[in-house]
């Protein structure tokens, strides 16, 4: 019988009760006494000089409390890029100032240039429309190739070719890679676009600034995945206020997918406006603002080449990518296309030589940053697509070509040619599991059934790996990170034995409140109901780096386990005193401290009580109380991996693609709550199918966002995805964290897009459309039809 509680049990999510009954407390649900309502005036032009912003008439409108413009924030600091990336020629990256509000120029449609605060939102909107702003429109720089080629057109006047950096990884390997290509018996080349995505979290961004004039304290309620990181950025970099005078609270947050990692100018603006007005100031984004101003994802244009022997052995791989960073550098914009992308270009394969070149390009579009998977989906898509193309060119089986090139279990720890050390894995095992669960042997029969209906059936594979559990500080420091990436937890045992765990991770849909409680309860042998998980408030939690990069369990969870270990260690000292035994003879199991070989024991509750009512307690050698904090910095990334199979049916008459089945065999290391893991995989694969078939962000040549609402931006719906087959039984434990866990949050979004596209191309190839070797995502009906009829 499966466990019904503790580690490994599919415990139902305790937070769902409040989410599903309307009791969640999101930023928009919070209303403070005398709050004013903020509305941001945003640029309707992609690129323009600001000649004048006259707020005189607007300020006199009914209910208007304050209007602040870029000029009011000009003295503040810029919102920085979190990683410093050098170009391959050694030049430092270009980092233009990202101001709170646009000043001098507006650089994308939706770039905010004024904040209007009024007694009501409608009054604020009326006043924003009455601002007398005069712009001189400049040519919009949208297309990356044109941005690089035309030095006269500059997003930032000081950057002459719109290139942030031109990065080579690893530059020293370049000559050897090129030599291998020159000598290779076969080279497969593929040009592809990794389509730009709008994150579309269910809850739009929202912020409330609340300045207390009596104490000089600032408080910010905001939709953040990492309140401490936001506090650090706002306090130390942008506003120049001491961190101890700023509290950041990220209450219930309705999804982030990366877009809520970053600090945005609206947060500093509501804080400054609150200080100016001595009243709280509340802003809630409308969906249209989310489309225009949230950091978008992906947007790479890539040429990838794979050199092979005639038998399919990979000899070398190289890529050239242009990565759009938009108009300003968002906080993770520089690391996403580099160290989260280039270092993954070996995949799960033993390709001996790999070289990656990435140019990051400024354009007059919204900033682009990490979105679920962040760089790793781009890497996986490029690799898995070029492998399929190579297999087609050489007439090789798509399973065999992967199997032949896998890193094998005897090779771990395995140092890749792109700078990572994979600690463990078993790619053969997940591949075989996927073949079994997906019934690949029965494919031809299903293809025949599809053909009888007039449909073309295709099978697409993707064997993927990612580096997550972000990240070892010593390593990321070498790579250019400006912060550490540890995490922290405080475990507070209350006097009556119940537990409060303060974690640096932030749950915005992941289910931390449930699964973290499962872990702590099992480790301490107490009921899960006695464990409370506290997150999201910098005044309560230790300094942790929040949730992204599939890091919550692997990093913050490890900190929590280490804090629990300290609790147990101290408990043993207390028990030894109470039981009049040597500390070394005390054993802890099932919630009891006992003397080895005897029936003498104290319960966890008795020890906790003694720590707070220390009447019989070794006060001369041990402090009272039972509360421990651990900071945990991982020794390495974790490397989840898996094998995905997608089957599609293509209607050749219309180009419509239907995903018929999707099979996932993943190795996430040890699994704490299988139900939550399955939910994460379902969500990730759903997003991947969305990217592969539906979602696309299109700016026209004037920088106007054409796909600016759900009328034109196609989100995946329930009918677009199949019932998934998901397995995580192939476990290789992470070798360097206490739970042996790897992380699962991004996996589905990383592994699935190439499986879908490979399946479509396979269907067309089998259907006789041999000229179709690639279709860029989204593989929409009109694109499929056009490719068939090209």
């Amino acid at each position, binding site marked *: 019988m499966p466990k019904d509680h503790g580690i490994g049990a599919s415990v139902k999510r305790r937070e769902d009760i409040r989410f599903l009954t309307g009791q969640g407390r999101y930023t928009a649900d919070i209303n403070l006494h005398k709050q004013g309502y903020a509305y941001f005036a945003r640029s309707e032009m992609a690129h323009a000089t600001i000649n004048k912003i006259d707020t005189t008439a607007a300020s006199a409108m009914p209910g208007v409390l304050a209007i602040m413009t870029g000029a009011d924030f000009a003295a503040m600091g810029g919102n920085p890029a979190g990683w410093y990336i050098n170009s391959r020629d050694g030049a430092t990256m270009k980092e233009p100032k990202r101001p709170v509000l646009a000043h001098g120029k507006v650089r994308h449609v939706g770039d905010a240039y004024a904040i209007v605060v009024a007694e009501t939102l409608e009054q604020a909107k009326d006043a924003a429309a009455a601002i007398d702003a005069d712009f001189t429109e400049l040519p919009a720089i949208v297309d990356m190739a044109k941005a690089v080629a035309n030095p006269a057109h500059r997003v930032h006047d000081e950057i002459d070719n719109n290139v942030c950096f031109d990065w080579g990884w690893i530059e020293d390997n370049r000559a050897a890679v090129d030599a291998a290509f020159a000598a290779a018996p076969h080279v497969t080349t593929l040009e592809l676009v990794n389509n730009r995505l709008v994150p579309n979290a269910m809850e739009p961004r929202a912020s409330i600034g609340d300045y207390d004039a009596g104490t000089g304290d600032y408080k910010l309620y905001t939709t953040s995945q990492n309140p401490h990181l936001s506090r650090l950025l706002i306090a130390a970099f942008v506003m120049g206020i001491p961190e101890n005078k700023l509290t950041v609270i990220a209450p219930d947050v309705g999804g982030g997918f990366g877009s809520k990692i970053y600090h945005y100018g609206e947060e500093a603006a509501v804080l400054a406006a609150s200080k100016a007005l001595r009243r709280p100031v509340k802003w809630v984004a409308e969906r249209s603002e989310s489309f225009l101003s949230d950091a978008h994802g992906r947007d790479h244009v890539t040429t990838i080449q794979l050199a092979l022997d005639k038998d399919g052995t990979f000899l070398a791989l190289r890529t050239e990518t242009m990565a759009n960073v938009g108009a300003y550098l968002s906080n993770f914009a520089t690391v996403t296309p580099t160290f989260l992308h280039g270092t993954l270009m070996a995949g799960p394969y033993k390709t001996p030589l790999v070289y990656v070149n990435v140019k990051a390009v400024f354009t007059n579009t919204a900033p682009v940053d990490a979105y679920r998977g962040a760089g790793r989906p781009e890497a996986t898509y490029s690799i898995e697509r070029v492998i399929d193309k190579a297999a087609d060119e050489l007439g090789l089986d798509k399973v065999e070509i992967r199997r032949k090139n896998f890193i094998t279990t005897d090779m771990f720890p395995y140092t890749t040619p792109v700078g990572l050390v994979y600690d463990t894995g078993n790619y053969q095992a997940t591949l075989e599991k996927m073949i079994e669960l997906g019934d690949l042997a029965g494919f031809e029969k299903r293809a025949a059934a599809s053909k009888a209906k007039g449909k073309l059936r295709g099978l697409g594979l993707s064997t993927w790996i990612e580096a997550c559990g972000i990240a070892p500080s010593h390593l990321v420091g070498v790579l250019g990170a400006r912060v550490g990436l540890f995490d922290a937890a405080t475990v507070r045992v209350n006097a009556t034995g119940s537990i409060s765990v303060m974690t640096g991770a932030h749950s915005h849909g992941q289910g931390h409140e449930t699964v973290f409680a499962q872990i702590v309860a099992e480790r301490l042998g107490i009921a899960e109901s006695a464990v409370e998980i506290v997150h999201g408030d910098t005044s309560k939690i230790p300094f942790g780096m929040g949730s992204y990069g599939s890091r919550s369990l692997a990093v913050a969870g490890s900190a929590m386990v280490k804090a629990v270990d300290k609790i147990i260690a101290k408990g043993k000292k207390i028990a030894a005193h109470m039981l009049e035994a040597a500390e070394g003879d005390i054993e802890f199991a099932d919630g009891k401290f006992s003397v080895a070989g005897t029936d003498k024991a104290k319960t966890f509750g008795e020890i906790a009580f003694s720590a707070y009512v220390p009447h019989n307690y070794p006060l001369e050698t041990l402090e009272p109380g039972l509360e421990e904090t651990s900071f945990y910095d991982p020794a390495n990334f974790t490397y989840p991996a898996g094998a995905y199979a997608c089957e599609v049916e293509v209607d050749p*008459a219309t*180009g419509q693609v239907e995903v018929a089945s999707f099979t996932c065999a993943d190795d996430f290391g040890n699994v704490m709550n299988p139900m939550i893991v399955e939910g994460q995989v379902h969500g990730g694969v759903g997003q991947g199918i969305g990217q592969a078939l539906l979602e696309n962000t299109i700016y026209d040549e004037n920088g106007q966002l054409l*796909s600016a609402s*759900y009328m*034109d931006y196609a989100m995946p719906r329930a009918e677009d995805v199949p019932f998934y087959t998901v397995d995580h039984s192939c476990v290789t434990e992470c070798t360097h964290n206490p739970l042996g866990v790897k992380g699962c949050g991004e996996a589905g979004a990383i592994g699935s897009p190439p499986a879908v596209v490979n399946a479509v191309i396979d269907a067309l190839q089998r259907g006789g459309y041999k000229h179709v070797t690639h279709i860029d995502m989204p593989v929409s*009906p*009109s694109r499929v*039809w056009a490719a068939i009829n090209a």
Partner: protein
Amino acid sequence: MYDFEFVKPSTIAEATKALTAEGAQALSGGQTLVPTMKQRLAAPGVLVCLTGIAETKGVCKGDGGLHVGAATPHAVVAREAASHYPALAALAGGIGDPAVRNRGTLGGSIANNDPAACYPSAVLGSGATVVTNKRKIAADDYFQGMFTTALEEGEFITEVAFPIPEKAAYVKFNQPASRFALTAVFVAKYADGVRVAVTGASNDGVFRWSEAEEALSKDFSAAALAGLSVDHSDFISDLHGTPAYRGNLVKVLTARAVAAA
């Protein structure tokens, strides 16, 4: 949204009078108008709500075929027309989502005449009669191009009378984002001929594909369409499809509608 006055008349006469007010705008289910107002892209001074008039609601069989009140929500048509005119009911049941179907109305849809809306194809494809507070208008005269109709100032639809065909079907190809018709075709076979109405494809709004009608009137089979093609020179080009793609869909969907009828 800007401030506005709101009136909800209960008779056609009251509504006719209310619509003479300065800045008056007729409101039916509000599925297009209200979002437009929320985005501050429309600012009518007075909204005259047309869903409170009992005689403009409901579905009943009568002399002119199936009479559908202009203020009848799609969900009601989907339910109540099912036994009389299954293709019409199926079309209504496939518009938007349940929330849209329970608010949006037939009259609102064809008064707006969105080039990608479903209902105009049923009205034109059935050769229906559009009844207003002032007159009766044949479907062939009613639709006059994208977002353009024969309705005059102060005129509003009270019901639509659909002649019931021998056979009919509506086949819609969803625009991937909005799930409006990227292109859709309504085919109806009557004793005196076949009508084929296409929505979602043309810059001129809903239209009849006369070559297909002629061929299908002689031989009501998908095979009769072989060799035909639709002129797509004035078709819509957008993020979701080229004119050529829409031209292909017209042909494919017409054949499928014939097969499904």
